[in-house]
């Protein structure tokens, strides 16, 4: 019963940590708008965490430059299990307009397992909430697999 309770709770209280892997700031603003009164992701339990150690879901935005790659990977490793990695915007998936640049080390999926991709430049807040809700579901499955 206790395990069931923890599992249920894991899906209902996903805390976000946001990593900006060098970016134009568009997705960052859209991510914040998800938490504002209009969309209010907190009704689903989402909360922005200040430290990666408190987080469950890591949201990565930006095309992963060579400078930021190590820092992104190190930050992701600091998030305790079970964790989910969500990429937001087209940049971390494909490089977007920066594709082919000498400064870009992406896509992120070359280095870590990415659970959810939210595509778009920038994605609509509805799409972001949908992706985050999916990540919360995956989080719950991962917690179940840990038992």
């Amino acid at each position, binding site marked *: 019963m206790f395990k069931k*309770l*923890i*599992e*249920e*709770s*894991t899906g*209902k*209280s996903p805390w976000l940590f946001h990593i900006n892997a060098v970016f134009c700031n568009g997705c960052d603003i859209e991510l914040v708008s998800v938490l504002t*009164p209009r969309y*209010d992701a*907190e*009704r*689903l*339990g989402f909360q*922005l*965490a*200040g*430290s990666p*150690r*408190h987080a*469950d879901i890591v949201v990565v935005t930006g095309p992963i430059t060579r400078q930021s790659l190590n820092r992104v990977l190190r930050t992701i490793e*600091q998030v*305790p*299990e*079970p964790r989910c990695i969500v990429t937001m915007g087209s940049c971390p998936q494909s490089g977007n307009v920066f594709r082919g640049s000498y400064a870009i080390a992406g896509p992120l999926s070359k280095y870590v397992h990415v659970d959810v991709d939210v595509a778009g430049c920038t994605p609509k807040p509805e799409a972001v909430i949908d992706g985050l809700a999916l990540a919360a579901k995956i989080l719950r499955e991962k*917690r179940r697999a*840990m038992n």
Partner: protein
Amino acid sequence: MTMFLNALLFLGYILIYPGFLFCFVVGMLLSGIDRKLVARMQKRVGPPICQPFYDFFKLLGKETIIPAAANRTVYLLAPLLGLAALVTIQVLIPVFRFTAFSGVADVIVILYLLLIPALATIMGAAASGSPYAGVGLSREMVTILACELPLLMVLLAVAKSVGNAMGTGLCFSLSEIAAYQSAHGSLLLRPSMIPAALAFLLVIPGETGSHPFDAAEAETEICEGMLAEYSGKPLGVYKLSHAIKLLTMTSLFVALFLGGLGTGVTALDALIHVALCAAVTVVTVSFVHAITARLRIEQIFKFYWTVVAGLALISLVLAWFGL
């Protein structure tokens, strides 16, 4: 046989009614009500009232990372120490005329016990070896120091006021204060005590580390400060302690200033007590959270040692002259 029953009763007090279970459920509910109301005031739907329970149980199921630079024992024991101290305070605070352990402790003991959770957090933060925690703990120390003076003056004013009326000089015993109030009406009805009550209401958000006095846990500037390195179960215990501290501080306010509203039936009294605690939480924590922005640490200190201490001083002087 009676000794055995007494031991069982005491265990029940500590673990169930004014003790751990009561603290856990009511503290989490208060924290949930706070979050929901802040959301409603910001025109959001807000999380469900039981969101803090989800957060707590989720944290129990997470991996606990212990940083390489941390002192393992202190790092893991500090949250438990803080929790134990808070539950102890809750057991000692009378619920109207019901006291689990009457005559054991007075206001001064409560004052000391209130320091322990903050000190435990500071110890844990120092043991975690994180520079963010270092900044956070120095700010927390200033916040404690800022709150302590007004709190002490409020308690002295109450003790003097009740002591004068009973002809004993100073009355520090919480159960006597509760008994006096149930016989002569709440202290809040006395004009000389109103500034002290206001000062206490202003101390509550400072003691619980909520907006605008949360410089020590500023998540946007210093990564949640003292809790920066904590994860998993110890973090869950800290979140629980934070919720219980809401209950403890508001209970203390209800016991000191609103003690005359009890009915004499224990179960009904408990309900009234919880309802009053929720009301005080809404007024002091939620409203203030929704309408203010975070203060800098020196602004917090100045505010407490001038405005709040001034209010408490007015009451203290009035009580000393027997008003």
